[in-house]
C-alpha cells in the first residue's frame, strides 16, 4: 500500500507536468493542476494509512 501511495504521488506530479505543454487554456491548466494535486493527496493518504498500519503491527 505504501508503494502504491508513493506511485500515486509521482503520478499526480506527472499529471501536473503534462498539463503545461499539452494545454493552452489557463482554465484547463488550472483544472489539471488541481486534479494532479488531488491524486497526490490520495497518494499521501495511502502512504499515511500504511504507516499507521505498520505502526499498529509493530505494537
Amino acid at each position: 500500500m505504501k508503494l502504491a501511495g508513493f506511485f500515486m504521488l509521482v503520478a499526480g506530479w506527472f499529471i501536473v507536468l503534462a498539463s503545461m505543454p499539452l494545454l493552452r487554456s489557463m482554465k484547463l491548466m488550472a483544472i489539471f493542476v488541481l486534479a494532479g494535486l488531488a491524486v497526490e493527496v490520495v497518494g499521501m493518504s495511502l502512504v499515511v494509512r500504511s504507516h499507521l498500519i505498520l505502526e499498529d503491527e509493530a505494537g
Partner: protein
Amino acid sequence: MTNGLATVICIVCLLLIPLAACGMALVNSGLGRSRAAAHTMIASLCIFSVAVIMYFVCGFGFQGFAGAPSHVLNAGGKQWDWIGAAPFFFRKFELDGSSASLVAVFSMLCAGLAALIPLGAAAERWRLRAMCASTALLAGFTFPLFNHWVRVGGWLDQVGINYGLGHGFIDVGGSGWIQAVGGLTALSIVWILGPRRGKYSSTKMPNAIPAHSAVFVVFGGILCWVGWLGLNSAGAILFGGATPGQTLLVIVNTTLAAAAAGLSALIVTGLRFGRPDASLTCNGWIGGLVASSAGCLFIKPAEAVVAGAIAGILVTYAVEWLEFGLKVDDPGGSISAHAVGGIWGLLAAGLFARFPAQSGSNSGQFIAQLVGIATLLGFVLPFTYGVNRLLNWLVPYRVSIEGERQGMDLHELGADAYPEFVVHTEEFIQR
C-alpha cells in the same frame, strides 16, 4: 544585482545566515531530553559540516548558476532545464563578488540550513553516522537539484516565460527550496525511524516527553529571526532583484510574519490548554519565519501579518495532528514548522504577491505556486523516502534499544551534556 552597495549588503546578510543554523541547533537541542542534548548539538555541527562540504564537492555542480552549462530536455517545443552541469569542486569558478559567486556562497549556507531540519524530527534515535550519510545525499543531490529547478533558470523558474504562469514559481527566501525540502526529508526519515521508545502507549496514545530547556528553545527562536533577516534579504537581492532600499520591506515583512505567527500560536495554545505553551509558541514563531520567506519581497506588510498569523495557527494544529492522528513522533516540530509552514508560505506568495505592472502579468501566479508544491510532494518526498530507505539498509538509521535507553549522549559520545546535574527522574523510567 550589479552595484557595489548591493554586493556589500548581500555579504552582510550572508554573514547573518549562520545565526539561523545556531538557532535551529538550540531549538532542536532544547526540545529534546537532556540525555541527548550534547548529541543534538554535535550532530548539528556534523550535519552542517557534511552539508557544506558535499555542496562544495558536487552540489554546486548539479545546481549550476546563471550562464553555466546545464542538461535540457525538449517537450512541446519548450526547453525544460532539469539539472546543472557545472564543474564539481567550484572548479573554473571565481569567488570574486560576482552575482554567481554570491549565489554559490548563499546556496552553500542554505544547504547547511536545509540539512539541519531533519535532525529536529529524528532526534534521540538517529545515529550520527546515518545522519552524515543522509545529509550527504540531501546536500549533494536533492537540495541542489530542486534549487536548480526553482532558481537558476530551471524549468520551474521558467514556467512563467514558457507557459504564461505569472512570473514563474517564486520563492526568493526558500520556503520551498530550503524549508519544505528539509521538512519533507524530515518526514521521510521519521517514517523510516519510527517513534521514540515509550512515546506511544499500548493503546497508541502519545505520552508527553517534555522539552528539557525552554530557554534554549526560545533563545534559538530569537537567533533564527536574526538569521532569517539575512536569509530573506540576501535571497531578495540575489533572486528577486531587490535594491538595497527594498531590503527594508523584506526585514519588515519577515519580522511581522514571525511576530504574528508567534502571537497566534501563543493565543491558540492559551485558549486550548488554559495557558500558553512555550515550545509550540516557538514552533509557531519559526513557522512564521518560514512562511515569510517565499514572498517577502512581493507582499505588503499587512499581508505578511495575515500570512504569519495563519502559519502560527497551522503549525500549532499540525504538531498535534502529526502526533495524535498520524503517529509521527517529531520532538522538534520540524515537519510542522518547516514543511507545513513552507508549503503555506508558497501558497501565501501565490495569493498575495504583487508585481509592478511593467514586469508582466500576475495571472497564473497561483497555478505556478501549485506546480511547485506538486513537485515537492510528487518528486521530493518519494525520492527522499526511497533513497533514505536504501541508505537505511547500508547504514542502519536507528540506534539500538540499549542506546536509546541509555540516551544518545552516553551511548554515542560517552558523556552527558550535564554531568554535574541530576536529570529528570522520568528519564530513568524503564519503558
